């Protein structure tokens, strides 16, 4: 059993062994987050690297209140967002009025229909903005208001981009399930 408290305490004193221990325990979880926010594994590695350095250098700012894991995850997400800002080449805004939710084909999928790899590929292939918003809203559970603040966009843009992202994802999943059905046949 790992004594997280002890590790954190040592990390605060820049203990190299403790830093490595912390990394060994949490890097898989954190890397999982990085992979979702990135378009490629190489980019995810960069996010993890930069984010973990931030964790190690700012560990003294963590005041033992709340979950340490949650704190680390937030730092990783924030790092991913800063990468997004860096990568952002253009800034498009959509009006919410343009978006209508289409419900023509109501596919309902089960949790076992797709592998993690397939889902990850779908997320990775999303355009930068969609990917960040989808992750933040659907998986991390941020509110549109928080997303808007973090990404420096309007509340409505966050909402509409999210709907578009979801629409795109649904299209891809439909394609995927069609391919799968074909293969089964």
């Amino acid at each position, binding site marked *: 059993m790992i004594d997280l408290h002890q590790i954190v305490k040592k990390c605060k004193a820049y203990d190299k062994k403790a830093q490595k221990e912390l990394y060994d325990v949490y890097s898989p979880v954190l890397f999982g987050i990085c992979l979702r926010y990135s378009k490629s594994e190489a980019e995810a590695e960069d996010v993890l690297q930069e984010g973990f350095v931030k964790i*190690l250098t700012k560990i003294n700012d963590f005041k033992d209140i709340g979950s340490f894991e949650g704190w680390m995850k937030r730092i990783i997400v924030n790092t991913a967002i800063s990468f997004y800002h860096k990568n952002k080449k253009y800034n498009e805004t959509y009006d919410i009025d343009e978006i209508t939710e289409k419900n023509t084909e109501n596919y309902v999928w089960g949790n076992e229909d797709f592998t993690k790899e397939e889902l990850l590929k779908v997320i990775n292939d999303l355009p930068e903005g969609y990917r960040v918003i989808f992750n933040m809203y659907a998986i991390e559970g941020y509110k549109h208001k928080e997303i808007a603040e973090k990404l420096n966009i309007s509340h409505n843009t966050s909402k509409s981009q999210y709907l578009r992202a979801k629409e795109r994802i649904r299209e891809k999943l439909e394609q995927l399930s069609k391919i799968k059905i074909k293969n089964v046949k």
Partner: protein
Amino acid sequence: MSSKENTENIFKNQFESFKQTPPSSVWKKIERKMIFKRFLKYKPLSLNLWNIIGITAIITSTILITQNTTHKITKNLLTEKTVKNVITDNNIRNKSIVITDDKKETAEKTNTEKKITQINNAFNNKSENQISDKNEIEVISGNLLKENYTNSELKSNNEGKINVKLAEPHSEFSVSTESACEPAAITFLNESENCDSFHWNFGNGKTSSQKNPTFVFSTAGTYTVTLTVTSGSVSDFMSKKITIYPKPNADFEIGNKNKNLYNNDKIIFLNNSSGYSKCIWNFGDNNTSAYTNPEHTYENAGNYKVSLISISDKRCADTAYISNVSIQDLKYKINFPTAFSPDKSGQNNGYWKNSSYTNTIFHPVVNTEVSKYRLRIFNKYGTLIFESTDINIGWNGFYKNSPASSEVYVWECSGKFEDGKLFKKTGNLTLLYLRNQ
């Protein structure tokens, strides 16, 4: 469960506890960065001067030897410093730092810049031998902590030159609409990044290399539109499905089209459209209907433009018109029976005025007084068998003073109403004798 929640749940369930072990190289980079950060944590004046001087001495001597330069690096250089290049090389465990002074006078500055070039050259020469393709060059400028480039952006190759990796092309586009009715002009908005050429395939054999093309899909179907973008030899593509729905065909006729139509008449409109699920009638008199085959009565005489919009279940529409539906004033309506059965009494020579409509005398019924009138009746051989110029005198069924035979006759009636409006009508009638006569 709606598919909306479904999509989110799939991802949430799969990724909430998603773990993947990163490659071991990541920790090495973190470790290296931490060492560097610790190094920077010291305040400039408390820098390990011996280290710096030692490193500086190495660089200086290299330059002195290789370039024959006699430039001095003074001690105050160390306090006001900008680190230009840091080359970390794991194999030789050697840190080289080039330090220059920003606040020197111009003359000296030029000198310094010259020197940097020389140093860089020296490094490049060195790199050729010592830097293998696994080594990274970290370029750090300005604020050390904030503006360092990530390794994926800058990589060194085995020739020791810094190559900025070109961003990969990314195909991306949006469409004015993903589904439309035929024929549909759809505009594609290119949102691709990092590319120099575009190739559109509209899924029906047609292509375009325009940046933002507009394409007209003239027939219904599902088309997969693909945008392939290329940057150099790398390409990326993206597809979208465009659905073009068939258009319904709107068509209709007027049920009683062979008759003259008058106001207060019940007019039946027959819908002959195909491929529709909903229709909207406009009778041209501000009245509309959504029935398939509606009946309509016009209040006033006039010419009306009747339109029918047929709408498919995909909300595609087609419109049919009859632009000149002529509704005549009821006061000009003349009614003729199509059959009558006279009795053989001669019936007052056919004078019917104010008599009850027993249908024993053939005559029209009018709503307005007529000033001029002529009714002629012919038999099947074209022989004129009856003529009257008085509307009050109809045919009593006699020909040459005896009852005419039971057959079909043709009539023609023309004249002028009181207000001067002319009329002319033709028709046929059947003469029948009731059995008890």
